[in-house]
């Protein structure tokens, strides 16, 4: 059984990683494969988003599959499918020394997290994605792990390329080309906060050294949710009279299921890994569809439940009382991706999975820190100086699992404004320094250019007249894509910058009277 489970886990992990790597443009308009299918199957993402938005316009099919699967077979998703769970298994294999014979009794924590998340979702604060294992995994891989691996690989091959003889270089370049086609991103991804997000991910994996599957046992809110759902699962565990309480099963249990307690087996904590069945020297443990007896429901205690509800409640005003939520006081740098719904609704939907950042062509979509308030931490923001929004690309809307970024057709996208560009004449070459430039006009992608120029006569310090072309922004045409800011040769602080005023998703954050 162990072999079969490991095989299944491996297949799902590879499937997940394959889909993750495919979440990248090949130049066509559509990605063409269901890259977000794991998040579509995530009941925690579904539930928190549905509660926060009070709507059900979310993909339903795969969530139903997981819910039914859990109701029938228990937490098989955790034990057999979840890619983060499999990574925990792998990290746990690094642990030396004996496993503690009696796991710590903190399994209630994850239920408390779950309750708090549900309560805050009910009051429209969407925080599910911060702790959801799939969102956490995709975010960590996108923003941190994949970029770091790419950096290391490229550094290695570049070193060979630069200093080894031709024969070696031929081989290494061939290998590099192979990796580029299969595993590496088209260009080195670079993200703000990659060290922070990667550090958290590493810490979560390192917890396995304290106790294997620490996260799954004590922290994972999705595991808690599936635990609730598995309460009446048909697949049950029976222990025959032959059990002499040797405790062999305890050391192999992946959950905090208390497998040696005949009367106190915690069904909701069982990951259905069936290690106890394999490990039992007397072959007393059986999994089957015969109703067993003696399983206990998770016992949280009233105080903990009340505490969690209060925490979830208090989180709402705590995270919401920020001046950033007032019109006109929002961070001007907070440019949301094209197709993003209005900010309030956006924050209720975004689960910070980072798929949009992974797929962004130019690397311009970056995780926020405080720009969107504490509530919006790690949500996507376009930073034009890092990468602009490619005029005909609609990939971020294609991968968003919760509709925080709507899926746009290229024609629709041409009419979506994410902000407005404005020129700083104090830094602009033709205005301030009498030099030709208008790179911004060249790269402006709207069919009728939003940047136009006026040929002006300026004088240099000797009084000679020079003719230069000075750019202007046509605010009725500018869509705020930021390519002008990205390509402006005035490095550092560019002479043309985009801010969010005028964004079409907002009713209030407007400039022109129309």
């Amino acid at each position, binding site marked *: 059984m162990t072999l079969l489970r490991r095989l299944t886990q491996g297949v799902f992990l590879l499937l997940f990683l394959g889909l993750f790597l495919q979440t990248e443009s090949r*130049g066509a308009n559509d990605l063409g494969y269901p890259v977000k299918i794991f998040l579509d199957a995530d009941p925690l993402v579904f539930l928190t988003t549905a509660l926060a938005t009070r709507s059900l316009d979310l993909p339903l099919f795969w969530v139903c599959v997981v819910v039914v699967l859990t109701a029938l077979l228990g937490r098989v998703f955790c034990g057999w499918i979840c890619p983060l769970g499999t990574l925990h298994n792998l990290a746990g294999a690094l642990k030396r020394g004996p496993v503690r014979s009696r796991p710590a009794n903190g399994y209630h924590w994850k239920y408390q997290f779950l309750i708090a998340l549900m309560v805050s979702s009910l009051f429209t604060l969407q925080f599910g994605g911060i702790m959801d294992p799939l969102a956490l995994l995709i975010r960590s891989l996108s923003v941190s792990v994949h970029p770091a691996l790419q950096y290391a690989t490229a550094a290695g091959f570049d070193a060979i390329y630069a200093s080894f003889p031709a024969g070696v270089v031929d081989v290494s370049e061939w290998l590099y080309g192979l990796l580029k086609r299969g595993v590496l991103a*088209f260009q080195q991804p670079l993200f703000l906060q990659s060290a922070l997000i990667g550090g958290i991910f590493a810490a979560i994996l390192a917890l396995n050294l304290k106790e294997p599957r620490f996260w799954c046992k004590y922290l994972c809110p999705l595991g808690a949710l599936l635990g609730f759902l598995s309460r009446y699962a048909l697949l049950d565990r029976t222990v025959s009279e032959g059990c002499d309480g040797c405790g062999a099963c305890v050391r192999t249990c992946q959950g905090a299921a208390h497998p040696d307690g005949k009367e106190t087996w915690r069904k909701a904590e069982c990951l259905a890994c069936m290690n106890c069945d394999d490990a039992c020297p007397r072959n007393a443990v059986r999994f089957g569809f015969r109703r067993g007896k003696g399983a206990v429901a998770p016992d949280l205690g009233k105080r903990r439940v009340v505490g969690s509800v209060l925490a979830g409640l208090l989180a709402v005003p705590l995270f919401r009382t920020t001046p950033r939520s007032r019109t006109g006081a929002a961070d001007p740098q907070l440019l949301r991706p094209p197709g993003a719904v209005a900010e309030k609704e956006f924050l209720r939907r975004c689960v910070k999975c980072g798929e949009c950042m992974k797929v962004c062509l130019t690397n311009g979509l970056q995780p926020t820190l405080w720009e969107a308030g504490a509530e919006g931490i790690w949500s996507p923001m376009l930073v034009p100086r890092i990468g602009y929004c*490619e005029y005909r*690309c609609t990939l971020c809307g294609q991968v968003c699992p919760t509709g925080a970024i709507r899926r746009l057709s290229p024609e629709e996208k041409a009419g979506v404004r994410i902000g407005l560009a404005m020129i700083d004449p104090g830094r602009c070459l033709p205005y301030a320094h009498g030099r030709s*430039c208008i790179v911004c006009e060249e790269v402006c*992608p709207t069919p009728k250019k939003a940047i136009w120029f006026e040929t002006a006569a300026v004088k240099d310090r000797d009084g000679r007249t020079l003719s230069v072309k000075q750019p202007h922004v046509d605010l009725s045409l500018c869509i705020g894509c930021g390519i002008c800011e990205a390509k402006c040769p005035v*490095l550092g602080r560019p002479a043309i910058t985009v801010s969010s005023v005028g964004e079409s998703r907002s009713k209030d954050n407007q400039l022109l009277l129309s």
Partner: protein
Amino acid sequence: MHRRTFIKSAVVAGAALSLPTGFAPLVRRLEAAAPPDLVVVRGASPAGITRAAVDGLGGMRRFVSRGAVVVVKPNIGWDRTPEYAANTNPEVVATVVRLCFEAGARTVKVFDHPVADARRTYKQSGIADAAAAAGAAVRFVDERKFKDMRIDGLALKSWPLYTEAIEADAVINLPIAKTHGISGLTLGMKNFMGVMGGWRGRIHQRIDESLVDVTRVVKPALTILDAVRILTGNGPQGGSLADVRRLDTVAAGVDPVAVDAFGATLFGMKPAELGCVRVGHQARLGSMDLGRMNIQRIRL
């Protein structure tokens, strides 16, 4: 085309036969000088007119020798489909690749260093698929292959240039004719911004001199200007079909300045109105004096 070649050789042969034997070396020299300065072909098929233009200059063998490594440099700068005339026509590119192989080229490399995302420009322009189908090695630029090179030109002292373009046995420039804010038009010389690395936007400060400098270093063997469709407004990126005009024309020549000078006339401009043409002429990179040139016009 073959008719022309035939008539040409018939005339030369006839002349040679009618001359005393002592004039033979002179005749040979005349024959060598026979190809026109520019060939301008108009016709419905982009492949057909491209082929005719190259044949009119004496055939691809004149530029590509057996076993040569050839760089074909189209404009793949923008994320636009072919009908928007922002990138070189894919059929023109594929035809030139085929002509190179027919002339015996070992490798034909096709690349550009685009402004927009390369994955999209290569795909959406149709050039990657068309050139690859013709057998070319279509590659994205590899940042490691930009090397700072001494130029000592009119505006540029040195600049990172793409080594593949510099080391190739022959570079064939395949621009498309478009309007452009700072340089007026973007034609052949402007197309060589695609072999430049670094922060290219800076060269806009002295665009005409910079383009002449880079063209002088790249030394294209042949320039074929794609004017199957030209972009008459909102260039170089376009995006509106109202700005596209169909001319069904290509113009080919050895002199990069002459081809650009001719390109200016397609937009109703005088060659000297285009800065890089004027500077290129003054710097003796080539000639903009179309009146003195032997321009062969073919209609298919």
